[in-house]
């Protein structure tokens, strides 16, 4: 993980109830950098450089989004 932020306050109805949530910028092994939510981790357990893995979360029939989880989870 290259960097991240923890969002506590956001007005948008799609995300407000999920706060606090972690947004991560992740450097993939293939060389692409991708922005996505980091799931299955407490915000105060996040550190720059921690290894994560890419996953996909199905939002609805038309939309799936890249998400990250700590490697090993």
């Amino acid at each position, binding site marked *: 993980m290259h*960097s991240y*932020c923890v969002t506590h306050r956001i007005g948008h109805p799609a995300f407000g109830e999920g706060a*606090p949530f972690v947004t991560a910028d992740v450097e993939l092994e293939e060389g692409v950098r991708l922005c996505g939510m980091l799931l299955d981790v407490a915000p105060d357990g996040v550190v720059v450089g921690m290894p994560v893995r890419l996953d996909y979360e199905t939002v609805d029939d038309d939309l799936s989004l890249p998400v990250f989880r700590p490697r090993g989870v």
Partner: protein
Amino acid sequence: MQPPATAAPAAVAPRARSLRDRVCVVGVGETEYSKDSGVSDLALQLRAALLACDDAGVAPHEVDGVVALTPGTSAEHFIDRLGLPDVTYCGRPEIGGAAPVGCLAEVVAALDAGICSCVVVVAGRNQRSGARIGGGGATLGPKFAHVAEFEMPSGSLLPAQWYARMARRHMHEHGTTEEHFAAVAVTTRYHASLNPRAMMRTPITVADHHASPWVVEPFRRLDCSLETDGAAAVVLMRTGDDEGRRHPAVHVMGAAHGHPDSPLSVTQRDDVTGLGIAKAAPRCFAMAGVRPDDIDVAEIYDCFTYVVIKQLEDIGFAEPGGGGPLVASGATRLGGRLPVNTHGGLLSQAHIQGMNHLCEAVRQLRGEAGDAQVRNAEVAAVSGYGDLGDGALAVLRR
């Protein structure tokens, strides 16, 4: 203080250098800054423009250049409402909030080339009572299309979230801390306490900063700028045409703007902390013929505390990683060796897209800054910052 990290582009410097001091700011105008102006965006901007004309001793019909920087209004509105007979220049650079400072590069060139003779630059809107950032209604436009497609669906919607990831990386690489952010917030608020035009005048402590709630870690509420109703404007003319005006002229020594790499996405930038001002600053100093250690006072765009720290490094006031220690040392406080944001900035005076920074730099150089006056201020730097890290720098002198 250190010289700019990058040598000025040799091919550009001599031509730009010839424009040094050729243009001056002859008027500044600021509306009341409030949470609810009760008037339209355009009315605010017209008031600011007229205040600046009055300050300059310029009749509105003399204005033949209009740089209207806030989306939603345009030069045509000013031509119509102010009855301007023949406007010949109306440029607006694509650098977001860096435009009030960055546009000076083109305004200087246009005035010197004779395209126009009297330019009003104006910015501001009902940012609090009208469309709020992140509140819906504020449109981001095509330059945010990449972010809208690849980042917003994952909940990364707001400038606070984009810049927080820059800040976190800077903390990781350089050891920048929340104490450094607090030093910016506390110092800026102290300056606002001295400014009757500032909205937030009650001094704060580091403990107050640390106790303020998280917005987007590592930013707390006191790391974030205000949202303000208001507008501000300046009037510029060629040096020599300024005789007989109400106030001593403030000369534009240098002005430049720049984009970061990958200006459409912070995430896709090799160095996510990279800003356009790192490219603009060496060009600005080359035009001005001065160095960072010649600057007596600096007004630095402060949408977030961290952004001040990074710009202080990129401008050359500190080494990379030295911005935090610089603000923590007290150097940027009134009485220090480089007072920064003597008006209270976007953090504590008002958020007027940084046009208030330009007005304050002019007031400092005129000696009109009241209790926040920097003694013997002769040379000022003022920065702009916009969109996903676009940057601008101007150097002004008495």
